[in-house]
C-alpha cells in the first residue's frame, strides 16, 4: 500500500487531505510540525510527503533539506498564493512540486499521482511523445510527424533536463545550472529564448503550449503523452 506523509499544522487542512487521500486508497500518516514530520519520515518510510511551507517550528524548506539528506521520496509542498520566492526555495531545496492554497482535491491528487509515477519510472525514457512531435533522446533525434526536425545541442540538453522531471516543475535556476552551467544561473533570458525556439519547433500553438508550460515566476514544466 502506498503511504503518504502529511506535514501540516492546520488540523482542518489535514482532515480533508486525510479523507481525500484515504478515499483514493493511500495510507495516510499525519504530522503537525516539522520535528514530528522528520521522525515520521524516518519511521514510516512513506512513498511521498506533502509538506506545508509555513510550519510552526521550522521553515518547510529546511525540513525538505533534512529529508533530502537521506531520502529521495517525492515531496509536494503546499504554499500560499503570491509567494513565488518560498516556492522556489522549497523546489531548490529538493521538493519535486508544489500546489498553491487554496486548491481543489482534484488538483492535489493529480500532483500526487504525477509525483508517484515519476518516482516509479526509470529516469526519462528514451522516447518522448509531445502531440505529433517525437523526441528520441537515445539517438538525439526528433521528428514532427514524419519529418525530422533539427534541434541544437542546447535545445536537446534543455529538453532532456525537463524530461528528467517530466510532469514536475523545474525551477529556472535548476534549468540554467544544468544546461548552461552554474555560472549562468542568473541568465534567465537564455531560457526565454530557448523555450520559445522549442515551442516553435514542437508545439502546434507556441503561444498556448500544451507540453512546454510556463510556471510564472518559478520555472517550467514539461508534460508528455503516454509513449
Amino acid at each position, binding site marked *: 500500500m502506498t503511504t503518504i506523509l502529511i506535514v501540516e499544522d492546520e488540523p482542518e487542512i489535514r482532515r480533508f487531505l486525510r479523507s481525500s487521500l484515504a478515499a483514493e486508497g493511500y495510507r495516510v500518516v499525519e504530522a503537525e510540525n516539522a520535528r514530528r514530520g522528520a521522525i515520521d519520515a524516518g519511521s514510516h518510510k512513506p512513498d511521498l510527503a506533502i509538506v506545508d511551507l509555513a510550519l510552526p517550528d521550522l521553515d518547510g524548506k529546511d525540513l525538505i533539506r533534512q529529508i533530502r539528506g537521506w531520502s529521495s521520496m517525492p515531496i509536494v509542498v503546499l504554499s500560499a498564493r503570491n509567494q513565488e520566492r518560498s516556492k522556489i526555495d522549497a523546489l531548490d531545496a529538493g521538493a519535486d512540486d508544489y500546489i498553491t492554497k487554496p486548491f481543489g482535491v482534484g488538483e492535489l491528487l493529480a500532483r500526487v499521482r504525477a509525483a508517484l509515477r515519476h518516482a516509479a519510472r526509470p529516469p526519462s525514457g528514451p522516447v518522448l511523445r509531445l502531440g505529433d512531435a517525437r523526441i528520441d533522446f537515445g539517438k538525439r533525434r526528433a521528428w514532427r510527424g514524419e519529418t525530422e526536425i533539427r534541434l541544437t545541442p542546447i535545445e536537446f540538453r534543455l529538453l532532456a533536463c525537463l524530461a528528467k522531471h517530466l510532469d514536475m516543475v523545474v525551477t529556472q535556476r535548476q534549468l540554467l545550472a544544468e544546461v548552461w552551467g552554474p555560472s549562468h544561473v542568473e*541568465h534567465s533570458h537564455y531560457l526565454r529564448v530557448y523555450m520559445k525556439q522549442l515551442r516553435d519547433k514542437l508545439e502546434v500553438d507556441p503561444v498556448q503550449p500544451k507540453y512546454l508550460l510556463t510556471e*510564472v515566476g518559478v520555472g517550467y514544466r514539461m508534460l508528455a503523452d503516454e509513449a
Partner: protein
Amino acid sequence: MRGYAWALAATAACTLAGLAMRGRFDLVNIAMVYLLAVVIVALRHSRGPAIATTVLSVAVFDVLFVPPQGTFTVDDVQYLLTFAIMLAVGLIIAGLKDSVRRQAEAQAQLGLVAETERIRSALLASISHDLRTPLAVMSGASSALAERGERMSAEERRALAASVFGQAREMSEHVTKVLQMTRLEAGAIELERDWNSLADLAGAVLRRLATRTASHRIVVDLPEDLPLLRVDASLLEQVLANLLENAVRHTPAGTVVQLRARRREGEVVVSVEDFGPGLPDDEIERLFAKFHRAAGEAAPAGMGLGLSICRAIVRLHGGRIWAERVSGGGLAFRFALPLEPEPSLPAELAAG
C-alpha cells in the same frame, strides 16, 4: 547650517548699506535696515538664525554706528531699546513661522489620514459586499450538506458541494486582490524584475484562466520579434489576468477578446480589446478610480479592484495604463512598458 550663512550674509549686506547711508540718514533708519535683515532671515529660516542675525546686527550696529564708534559702549540708553526691539521682532517672526509650518504639516498629515481612511472604508465596503454573498452561500450549502445530506440525492449533494467550492474560489480570488491592493498601496511590494517574454506569460495566463474565459473566443496576436521585458513575472501575469477577466465579464458570451502587443519607440504596448458594448467617455475616464464599478451594474466580485491593481503594477514598472474606445464600440485596455536594452545571447545563438 544654511540659515546661519544667511544670517552672516544678511548682516554683512545691511552693514554695507548702513555704511553707504551714514551721514545722510538718522541712526534709527540704519537700525531699520538691520531690522529688515532680521525679519527676512526669521521668515526664511528658523529661530536660531533669526537670533544670530539679531545678535550680529546689534553688535555690528553698535560697534560701527552707535557713538562712541569702535566700542561696545552705548552712550544713549535709547539704543538699548532699539536692540531689544530688534531681538523681539526676530523672535516673534521666527515663532510665527514655526507655528505656520507646524500647522501646514499637521494639515498634510490630516489629509493623508483622510485619504488612508477613505481607502480603508472603500476596502471595507468592498470586502463586506463581495464576501458576504459567497460566505452566505458557503455556510448555507455546507450546513445543508452536513445536517440534511443523507436525505438528498447524490446529484443534489454534489451540486451543493460544488457551489461551496466555486464560491470559496471566488472569495479566495477576491481576498487575494484586496490583500494585493493593500500591499501595493502601502508600497510593501518589491519588484522581482527578470527578463521575461510576453508570450510566455500570456500562455500561462490563458491556461490558468481557461475555464473562466471559456465563454469567449480569445485571440492572441503577439509579433514574433517582440523583445523581452525586464519585469516582475508574477505581477505582470496578474495585470494580463485582470484585464482578460474584466473583458470577459463585461462582454456577451461568444464575443472575441483580443490580446495584442506592438513594439513602439522605446516601449511595448500591450492591449486587451473587446467587442462588447463599450462605455461612454466619462465612464472610461473614471475606470481607473479606486473601486470604481460601472454605473447601474450588478457588480461582480473584485470589479474595480482589478483595474486599480493593474494600474499600480504598471506604474511600479515605470509604465502607463489607459482605456479607450475601439472602432466597433468595444473597449480597449492598453498598457505601455518601457523597453530596456536587451542582454546578450548565448554563444550557440550568436553563432547562428
